[in-house]
């Protein structure tokens, strides 16, 4: 369970009041370390740049993903939190789930249409944990192979058609 900032030199050109959003990200980091959602244990290895986070997540006990480890990547644009973060699974183990494509893209409405600046890394992690935990059958989305071949690298560019939430 690791939360890590990339050390890339990519400088985000800030809008209006950049320091404020940087402070928000720092606050979010602190509260994530202090009160991580279940299944997310955070350890920090910080860099200069707060715009790229890597978060490790463990499949919750008693679910189909028990014992598995996943890595989530959060990319924050300079417009965060007005603009949703770009959240994808990365690394060798992408959870097999009806809302998770094999390239790591996640079909979750709060990551695009239903995003609100009152949401946070913490609430996004919680949603993803609960999305995994409620899964009853491990399978890829039905359109997985087509989507993965044709989609943009940025999942936010996808015009998602949100699957039934009960899955």
């Amino acid at each position, binding site marked *: 369970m*690791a939360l890590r*900032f990339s050390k890339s030199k990519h400088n985000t050109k800030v809008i*209006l*009041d950049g*320091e*404020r*959003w*940087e*402070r*928000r990200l*720092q*606050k*979010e*980091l*602190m509260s994530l*370390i202090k009160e991580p959602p279940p299944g997310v244990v955070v*350890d*920090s*290895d*910080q860099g200069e740049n*707060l715009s790229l986070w890597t978060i490790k997540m463990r499949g919750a006990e008693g679910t189909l993903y028990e014992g598995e480890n996943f890595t989530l990547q959060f990319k924050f644009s300079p*417009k965060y*939190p*007005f*603009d949703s973060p770009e959240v994808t699974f990365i690394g060798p183990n992408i959870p097999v789930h009806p809302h998770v494509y094999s390239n790591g893209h996640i079909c979750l409405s709060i990551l695009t249409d239903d995003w*609100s*600046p*009152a*949401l946070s890394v913490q609430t996004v992690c919680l949603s993803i944990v609960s999305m995994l935990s409620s899964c009853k059958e491990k399978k890829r989305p039905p359109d997985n192979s087509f989507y993965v071949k044709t989609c943009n690298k940025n999942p936010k560019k996808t015009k998602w058609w949100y699957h039934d939430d009960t899955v």
Partner: protein
Amino acid sequence: METTNAPGPSKSGKDGEEKEENPLFECNICLDTAKDAVVSMCGHLFCWPCLHQWLETRPTRQLCPVCKAAIGKDKVIPLYGRGSNQQEDPRNKVPPRPAGQRSEPETNSGFPGFGFGDGGFHMSFGIGAFPFGFITSTFNPHDQRPSQAARGLPNEDEFISKMFLYVAITFIIWLLLA
């Protein structure tokens, strides 16, 4: 992996202090103590610059970030704390905060007898007649002595002013009856 290390330079001092502050008054968007605070009808607190920027982000779909209730520029109330000006961050002055609304109590018009419902013509005529009669009678005393002595027509000016007064009064009565 250093767990205790602060992730940024502004971290250690400032955030330590903020932990002491009441999170009840933190803006739901920037997570800082709300500046130029406004509260929505659903009771959620924001900095006005933060909320303004969110409303601009999705102008066609303005929802409260917290509870998704309908929200808008005319649906928030500014909060004025005592001495709040001192805490204002000049960087956040960008869009003016919507002003507080204060309804004036109902007052009666100064000319109840004339009745606004009668229309503009009667009103302006009535106002015109009054000062005319008033001025004539007020200026009269200054004139009175010289004219009395020189012309021997002691009551002429007084008569004229009284005439005006009667005309004015008659007109007012006519207006009242009409």
